[in-house]
């Protein structure tokens, strides 16, 4: 008697499970995607107050459309940011959406952890809403796939002290020779030609020089790990030699090798430096120095009017996890659409960022004048790369090898050989 009863109970349970499964599936297809109860976790490299305010506003807007979703913004300082993404991915609980740089993106894309956004890019016309090349910038590594959508760019510019320039009768340089002359004249008159630090400005100088000394295709081939042309090698060596000559000539601050990069704006603010080579993310810091400053793109072209490539990559880009459920994907797409609007682009401008969204005219922001100056300064420049993003680990190597050259402990050729050896390794 017991055995038949057990079998009947088991059959009944199985049936109930099957039926509930079926009804669950039917329930899913018929439920409005905006009403689904789920979580949405995203992470970005922007942990400053301005950025967090923008994300909080975006989340509040999305919360209205998706009332049953719990949003979590796990943004942290860039040092731990990529580590968190990797850890989440490898532990099987990836972030639904990430705002990542090229180095953070590449291993995820190769591991099929990112959703191909091509259908959405086409549907919402994101390519044409942004400055030319923005959407493709990070996607060139993956032919026929588009995993990311950029948002802000990160140009490097030269901040110059207008008072010193006027006093010394210097004009904004438009060629490499003129730029070198500015440093020379400033140093000869007791000023610091170019504010510098242990890192990373010298590496940025090197990368800028290289990108203007070879055809763009050579740069692209090297950056995307395809090939290293002899011209590229020569340009790399020559750039190292040139920067060393500047260092030996005393164009940089004395003892710059021990200066911390974070001090650069404050040191420029002492009013003794003619120029400083820095990123747009420090724009607001330079504004607080009280120095009457202007900006110009680093002129690495040898003839006036020739194309000048400046390091101005897409700073980071949005990507959605390939493991996100339909609601999470919809939220991610909506978040990107929110960022691609005048109001949010204007908000990014107030934080000192340079949106890649093609803004139509808006009411001026508090930072408008300076941002306009920055935009005008780099308007005619071409987008260039942070070459140290070519592959994980190469930034440290490039930095150290250049430091050794500047210390006179190896030649530029040895530096190139070591960098190329690492670049060539299959890891």
């Amino acid at each position: 008697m017991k055995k038949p009863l057990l079998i009947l109970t088991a059959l009944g349970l199985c049936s109930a499970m099957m039926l509930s499964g079926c009804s669950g599936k039917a329930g899913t297809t018929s439920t409005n995607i905006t009403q689904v109860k789920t979580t949405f976790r995203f992470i970005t490299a922007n942990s400053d107050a301005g950025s967090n305010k923008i994300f909080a506003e975006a989340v509040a807007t999305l919360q209205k459309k998706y009332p049953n979703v719990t949003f979590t913004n796990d943004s942290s300082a860039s040092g731990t940011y990529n580590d968190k993404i990797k850890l989440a991915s490898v532990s099987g609980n990836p972030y639904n959406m990430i705002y990542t740089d090229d180095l953070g993106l590449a291993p995820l894309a190769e591991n099929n952890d990112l959703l191909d956004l091509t259908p959405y890019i086409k549907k919402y016309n994101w390519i044409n809403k942004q400055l030319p090349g923005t959407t493709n910038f990070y996607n060139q590594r993956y032919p026929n796939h588009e995993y990311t959508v950029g948002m802000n760019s990160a140009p490097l510019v030269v901040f110059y002290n207008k008072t010193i320039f006027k006093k010394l009768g210097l004009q904004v340089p438009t060629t490499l020779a003129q730029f070198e002359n500015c440093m020379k004249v400033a140093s000869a008159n007791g000023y610091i030609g170019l504010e510098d630090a242990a890192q990373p400005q010298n590496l940025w100088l090197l990368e800028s020089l290289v990108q203007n000394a070879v055809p763009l295709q050579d740069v692209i081939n090297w950056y995307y790990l395809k090939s290293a042309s002899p011209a590229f090698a020569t340009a790399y060596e020559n750039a190292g030699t040139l920067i060393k000559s500047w260092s030996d000539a005393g164009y940089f601050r004395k003892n710059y090798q021990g200066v911390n990069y974070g001090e650069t704006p404050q040191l420029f603010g002492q009013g003794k430096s003619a120029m400083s080579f820095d990123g747009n993310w420090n724009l607001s810091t330079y504004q607080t120095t009280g120095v009457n400053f202007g900006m110009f793109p680093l002129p690495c072209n040898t003839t006036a009017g020739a194309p000048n490539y400046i390091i101005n990559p897409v700073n980071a880009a949005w990507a959605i996890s390939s493991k996100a459920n339909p609601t999470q994907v919809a939220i991610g797409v909506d978040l990107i659409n929110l960022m691609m609007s005048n109001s949010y682009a204007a908000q990014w401008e107030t934080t000192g960022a340079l949106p890649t969204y093609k803004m139509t005219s808006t009411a001026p922001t508090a930072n408008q004048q300076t941002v306009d100056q920055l935009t005008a300064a780099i308007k005619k420049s071409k987008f260039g790369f942070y070459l140290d993003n070519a592959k994980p680990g190469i930034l440290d190597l490039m930095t150290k090898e250049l430091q050794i050259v500047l210390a006179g402990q190896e030649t530029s050729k040895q530096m190139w050989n070591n960098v190329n050896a690492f670049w060539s390794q299959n890891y």
Partner: protein
Amino acid sequence: MKDRSKKQQIHGNYKSLPYAFVLPGMILFVLIVVLPVIQTFVLSLTDWDGISPLNLHSFVGFSNYTQAFTTPQLLTGLKNNILFAIVGVSIPIILGLAQASVIVNSKIKFKNLFQIILFLPQLLSSIVMSIMWLAIYDPVNGVLNNLLKMLGLGKMAVPWLGLSSTAIYAILIIGVWGGCGFNTLIYCSAIRAVDPAMFEAATIDGAGSLQKFWWITIPTIRKTTTTLLLFSLIGAFNQFDLVYQMTQGGPGYSTYVISYDIYESAFVGNRVGFACAVAIILAGLIFLVSRVFLHFREDE
């Protein structure tokens, strides 16, 4: 008979009791230490990047180890670790002993206060220490260079952390400064534990302070010295936080240490397999050094 078997039963039950008390700790130890070590060794035989799935294609045998032994940066790191082991261990031991001897044996007032002041660096976290010393070593606004300029020694005001000839020693100084206080504290306890009768006997025999120190104090606190040496040696090979926070192994590779290479390879370079191999090599090195050390200690 019944009582005897009951006693045996109770004794049998109590036999396994110690293991029951030790078991939770052992389980934690296995989970947190043993299993990760085994996992690290297994990963060291792969080319895993920390993200992609681990499968048979990832297995590369001992190629990570051969690569590690032929990487110039790693050999520089090993050299720096050995420098830390020699200079960064011996000087704090000697200074700690000297300071403790003065505190305990001399007639200075406020001995406890001096002990506390000397121990203060030990209370600072490495990040606080780094920020503090970065400010001291700053070539433009730092205390050290400004002091040198005030004393008319402006020529000696160099970028301490920016020159390959000075950076490693600048970090060594911080290590010595941080380690002295702890050694002083331990030595104070050890010297106070020396039997006073031995000093009295030596005094009667006409021994001076230095002779008492050399022939009584030092031999008596020998075990303390060797223990401190062992811990300091292990710490020297594990050196990471100061390098990471202050110089990132630079300028060039002048302050590179093995632990920093592990961090760079695993978390920046996405070469977890290689980093695990280096970690195993480092662990083996520390084990070897400590075994040799303990062997000499047991011989004593």
